[in-house]
């Protein structure tokens, strides 16, 4: 269980990115955070795994207050949360395999990782992850030779290497086309349902939100302005959505929004 209490983030330049944000995420939820650009979504996600240090407030993860952790303990906590990014954040010139197996770094002694000596179990795990995401045949390619959708799957594979209990996804589909967007989100949904991973994900498109979320949080100017269940969101009209989301809110093209069953995971690689 993840509990956020009175989280506030003020950047060095004085920007208040989060204002007293509190909410709870139960295990197995697919929580989607929506909000305008600049509303603080990325900041919030990064405060959870401490890529950004919150100014005030607590992040309680399974009873441990992450904001108090340092060094080794913090890194151990981070291992339990995989993160995927809008721009994938792969090391472009490294191979797909190397990018994926880097997900094990938190589990191995430093000297081994400096020598690049990953053990067989890790290698096997990486191959399995690549298989699961349907990109095993790309393993030896340079990461930047892959298409956007494939790169995001490398990102997911890297996160899975951590055997995470939760996945933080910062606009994972914002730089992908609609078909690939569904593709990636269906994958996250599968992890959520089959592996019972908690997912905290920021998103832009209304129909994706309605389709995948079990719960939705709306952020505006660093404050939570909306909280709703899956049912609330499905019942929500575009106008209401725009209210919290702003005029920017949009559906992805109508042609793909209807019946989604046809998009199989990995089927569009």
């Amino acid at each position, binding site marked *: 269980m993840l509990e956020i209490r009175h989280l506030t983030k003020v950047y060095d330049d004085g920007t208040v990115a989060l204002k007293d944000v509190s909410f709870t995420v139960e295990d197995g939820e697919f929580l989607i955070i929506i909000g305008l650009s600049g509303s603080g979504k990325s900041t919030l996600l990064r405060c959870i795994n401490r890529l950004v240090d919150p100014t005030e407030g607590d992040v309680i993860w399974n009873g441990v207050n992450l904001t108090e952790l340092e060094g080794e303990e913090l*890194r151990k906590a981070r291992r339990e949360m995989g993160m995927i*990014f809008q*721009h994938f954040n792969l*090391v472009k*010139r*490294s191979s797909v395999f190397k990018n994926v197996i*880097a997900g094990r*770094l938190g589990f191995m002694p430093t000297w081994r*990782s400096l020598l690049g000596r990953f053990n067989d179990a890790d290698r096997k795990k990486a191959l399995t992850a690549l298989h699961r995401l349907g990109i095993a045949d790309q393993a030896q390619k340079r990461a930047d030779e892959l298409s956007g959708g494939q790169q995001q799957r490398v990102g997911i594979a890297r996160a899975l*290497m951590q055997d995470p209990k939760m996945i933080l996804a910062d606009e994972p589909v914002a730089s992908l086309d609609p078909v690939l967007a569904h593709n990636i989100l269906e994958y996250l949904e599968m992890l959520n349902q089959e592996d019972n991973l908690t997912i905290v994900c920021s998103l832009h498109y209304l129909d994706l939100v309605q389709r995948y979320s079990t719960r939705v949080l709306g952020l505006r100017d660093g404050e939570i302005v909306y909280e709703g269940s899956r049912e609330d969101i499905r019942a929500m009209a575009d106008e209401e959505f725009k209210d919290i989301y702003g005029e920017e809110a949009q559906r992805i093209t109508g042609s793909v929004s209807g019946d989604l069953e046809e998009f199989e995971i990995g089927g569009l690689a």
Partner: protein
Amino acid sequence: MNTNSLQHTPSKKRSPSLVPPYLAAILSALIPGLGQALARAMRRGIILLSSFVTILGLMAWRIRLAARRDTEVFAIIKKAYHLQPVLVVLSVMVLILYLWIIYDAYIIAKDAERTPVLLFFMLIAVFFMLGWQIGEIDPIAFVTKADDAAPALARVLWPWEKAISYPEEHLLATVDIQVPCTEEDPPPPAPEKIEGEPYFWATPTCGDLKTQDGIPGTILTIRGENFAPDTKVNILWEDPIGNEFRQRQEGEYVTTIPDAKGEFEVEIEMPYRLLPPHADADFYIWDLKAKQLATVGQAEPSMELKLAVEKIVETIFIGMMATFFGILLALPLSFFAARNLMSASPITIAIYYLVRGVLNIVRSIEPLIWAIIAVIVVGLGPFAGILALTVHSIAALAKLYSESIESIDPGPIEAIQATGANWLQTVMYAVIPQIIPPFVSFTIYRWDINIRMSTIIGFVGGGGIGFLLAQWIRLLDYDSAGIAVWFIAVTVAILDYVSAEIRERFV
């Protein structure tokens, strides 16, 4: 408030002129550009005025220079025009420019929307002609003198005859000649023959020298055997006190060329020579010598070729060592010169600016100048070259390195941190893979430059092949210079290829 006169922007309208067009023209006739300035084309006026004054100043200087000795103005101008017809063209152009500026003032004042640009091409044309005159550009000389240069250039282009040489050996044979003949003493015997050595004898072996009054000397028939065929033999004398001098006949030195068997025969008249101070002896023994500089054995690389090889190796290593030292010192410096790493506190920012500033200054000084300084410090030789190139490399590499550090994508760093990796692991997996390719690429690029530079750093005493090249050019030894030029060209070409290959592999 004003239009930019260099850019033709018809849409931009000036404020109306302060003076009527004809007045603007008159003002510009008095002071070129003043009319434009008062017509609210201030920048145009300033540009025209300053250019015109500059042009007049330069013209006056060139005319004075062309007719240095004259003092009277008219004479100076006349002579300058005579000596340098370009100055006539130039003067006409300046006159046209002057009239044009007047006309331009009229136009500018009359029509606030027009900003003609053609005038500025005229300005550029005048400066071009000035450059032509100041640069002493002389295409005719280029063509006519090319003929004279052709032989030298041909030697530079194909210097390889100088690349081989044959080992040489002095062949020498001597015969004793008694001066004068006496009745009591028998003339010296012919020398003994030694197998394999050149042999040389004369008949007779005694005689009288030619005298000052013109009484001819005794004619000697001299024969040689066992000399090198087809190679010049010099005939010399050595008088009793050891002075050597060459035999002359009718003003020419006597030489002969042995036949295919190495034999020769010449007749010589015994020369006039001041006799040594009178002594008791009735006669003196003079030595008659046949001397030959013969090539023996196989062709071998010439001295020059060996030197060139030696120095090109030195050159390559100068470049290499400078690159090594450059990398070693630039690496740590580059971190201090990377803004993204140094923006944490005011102190680090100060260090950043300091390092950047020093690097910029060092980099802006040419390696050749650094070499001159290094030669003063450590003396002539390769070490000076290495020092000079190292200093410049450090500055150049540190800048390039720091820029590639600055352009690191923070995304992967964030992602690797999020996996629970520690600092070292993050550097290893997210930072280094990003900076290695640009580092390798910049390093090779620098290596390339360093080797090129090391070929010429010798011109100022920095060691390497440039040192030889400069020397040979000064000695007008174009063959040897050609060898050096070839070595440089081939080295640089190979290096180009190699560095392109490496870069392709790594980047």
